């Protein structure tokens, strides 16, 4: 399994705040570090990974977990 540098539970946090919080968490990491975020089903899992891609980060894994998803994101170039 991937080494996770930081974990963030964003269940119950709606768009776009979940993306904002994910970005802030990524800011404190180094390039190549992995952040684990929990995102709700529906809009959050549809939108946040796409926005992360647009910002140059890379989703590594998406694991369904009840009505949420555990998502591993690798921090891209700063």
């Amino acid at each position: 399994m991937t080494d996770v540098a930081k974990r963030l539970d964003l269940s119950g946090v709606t768009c776009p705040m979940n993306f904002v919080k994910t970005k802030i968490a990524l800011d404190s990491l180094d390039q190549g570090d992995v952040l684990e975020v929990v995102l709700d089903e529906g809009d959050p899992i549809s939108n946040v990974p796409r926005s992360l891609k647009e910002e140059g980060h890379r989703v590594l894994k998406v694991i369904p977990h009840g009505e949420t998803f555990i998502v591993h994101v690798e921090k891209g170039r700063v």
Partner: protein
Amino acid sequence: MSEAKPFQLDPNESRKVGYIPQKQIDYYALRLHVIAGDLSANQLKAVAEVAEKYGRGEVHISTRQGMEIHFVHASNLDTARLELDAAGIKMGACGPRVRIVMGCPGSATCKFGIIETKAIAKELDRRYFRTDTPYKFKMSVTGCSHNCAKATENDLGVMGGLLPAWDKNICIDCNLCVNICPTKAISKQEVNGKSEYVLEESACINCSVCTLSCPVNSWTASKSGYTLLIGGTLGKIPRLASVLKKYIPTEEELFNLVERSIDFYRKNGRKKERFGHTLDRLGLETVKKEILGE
């Protein structure tokens, strides 16, 4: 108003030029010509001015991106129309003819957009607006299967669409696509201990969700183009549009098929029969073959 002669309007003629008689005697709604929901700020100012001068200072937005100025007295109709005309705003259409063309923002500004909607809407308008058809004829252009401009509810709809294909050499097996495809058209299968992502084409709605979101662009469009939809209508007898053809690659082919579709309706549609009901009366598959020239 130079002459004070009593105003006479033939109801059919008035509808042609976008004057809709209200239930209040001698008052009309002025229906304006708008393409894909776009007006410039200056045009909006002119609309506002005309509404204040000749109406009751109110503007009504229709469900099809049209704009109407209500409560214009018959004696002011032509003056109001000329003032709008000077600002580059023509009248809309009512009655049994081609109505204003709707459109979503499309690929010019929307990240999901697969086609340039505005250019197509303008060209449809240029070719067909206000031309006669057996019954009202509505068209809409929407950039992708999110269908924001409701192409499936129009007599003729154009929608952007793509067919994704998966590249196993790039995929990092993240499992995102399986979890975000709106129709669950992608499934993950284990083949010799390796993950394969398989597309069920019949379930795919040709949106750009997987191609946009895949972190490494393992899903890309293998085909992309215009989907031509025919026979949609809401109103009294609702019917969603049927697909005539998908992945039409060029504008030329698209407009050729549009022409053949409208031509078929003009020749075969009965009075007060929407295109979709003509299709159902004559048999959808038979008509599709005829329009496609198969």
